[in-house]
């Protein structure tokens, strides 16, 4: 975290007064996502010992990973809120939108995580791709730059990444004190829901088949 600060605030001298808060908000939210997805992808092969001994419905594993990272996130998020209040942001009524944002992010992570957890045991090489993909997404999610300041056509592509929109909206709520972009969040929601359904279906479909490939 301090490395990011050093590079972007001190070296590049890009820090406005809000830059630390801007960076922190992006990073905390991203960290939640980044702690969930690669682990979800691995979760079935990691628990191979258990799966070979007792029957456990396989959707338990991604759910476990996400619950775990959510607990950690909640603690860090409270610290972030304290930091924001301490540095002069006052809680406003729009903060009530935060649980909605968190719920949405949870849904996105469960959707992506469950689909990946069901596919990766059959295609183990995907793990590499996912790790690199996470790095790529990290740079494309607007964690240390403001996506809304990008050119319009570029913006359309960047917003295809659900995390970009979500991070953007956390900032809108926390830093600018405005309500989130509901239509955008609605779109993310309506794409994630079928994703979660697909993940659920795959995990059920291959419930007793995973044991053969791990």
């Amino acid at each position: 975290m301090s490395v990011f600060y050093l590079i972007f605030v001190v070296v590049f001298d890009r820090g406005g007064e809000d830059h630390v808060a801007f960076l922190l908000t992006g990073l905390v939210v991203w960290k939640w996502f980044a702690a969930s997805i690669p682990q979800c992808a691995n979760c079935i092969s990691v628990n191979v010992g258990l799966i070979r001994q007792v029957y456990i419905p396989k959707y338990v594993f991604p759910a476990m990973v996400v619950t775990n990272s959510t607990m950690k996130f909640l603690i860090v998020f409270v610290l972030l809120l304290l930091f924001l209040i301490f540095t002069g942001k006052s809680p406003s009524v729009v903060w009530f939108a935060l649980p909605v944002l968190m719920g949405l992010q949870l849904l996105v992570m469960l959707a992506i995580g469950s689909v990946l957890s069901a596919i990766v045991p059959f295609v183990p090489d995907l793990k590499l791709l996912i790790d690199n993909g996470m790095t790529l997404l990290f740079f494309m999610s607007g964690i240390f730059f403001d996506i809304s300041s990008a050119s319009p056509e570029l913006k359309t592509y960047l917003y295809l990444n659900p995390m970009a929109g979500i991070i953007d909206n956390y900032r809108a709520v926390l830093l600018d004190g405005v309500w989130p972009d509901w239509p955008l969040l609605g779109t993310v929601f309506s794409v994630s829901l079928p994703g979660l359904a697909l993940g659920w279906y795959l995990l059920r479909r291959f419930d007793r088949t995973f044991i053969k490939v791990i």
Partner: protein
Amino acid sequence: MTRTGNGRQLAISIENIAVAYQRRAGFFRKEKFWALKDVSFDVYHGETLGIIGRNGVGKSTLLRLLAGLMSPDKGRVVNHGVSATLLSLQVGFVQHLTGRENAILSGMMLGLSQNEIVAQMDNIRGYADIGEFFDQPVHGYSSGMQARLGFSVAIHADPDVVLLDEVLGVGDALFREKSSNAIKDLVRSEKSVILVSHQPAMHRQMCDRLVWIEGGVVQDAGEVKTVLDKYQQYHK
């Protein structure tokens, strides 16, 4: 004790099952390898059924099917309302939790409720016989101690059908005798036990009935002595 199992209540039936594994046959090509081709047999309440066969004939696959961990590619496994568990030595121990906590965790995964385990905790502790270590984190255990704890929990989990995959090689001589006695008790009890091994001596000692698997099919099944004689004849 009836030796055939006829006239008894069915516990699990295996009907014409076949299981294939993917095998890499080239750079991109994969082929199916049929570990089990056509296997059928019944398991009755209270009997001890032996499964014999050489390495790689699908004995472990069969146990996984019976335990409901795997679904067959053809045929079906009919469970007549029993719980079947692999008697294992450590079901998902979490290394930084204590033996007591792990006993609860692993007992719950074996299908007990938390209260049931807590009620039996003294027995589990006494049986594992690892002294003060019971309330220490598991990562400080020797492998023998982990096995003792695991075995103790598994024995107390009390499933209807116990699936045994040639264990008994755990712990020191004293504990080995204890565990082998526990298994003999299981065998004598009203539980069904399925014993997988390639040691004829063990089957002769414990089983009521024997199923011999060879080449993915049931080569022979029935009275232990008859089947064993044929098995040994075949592998001479």
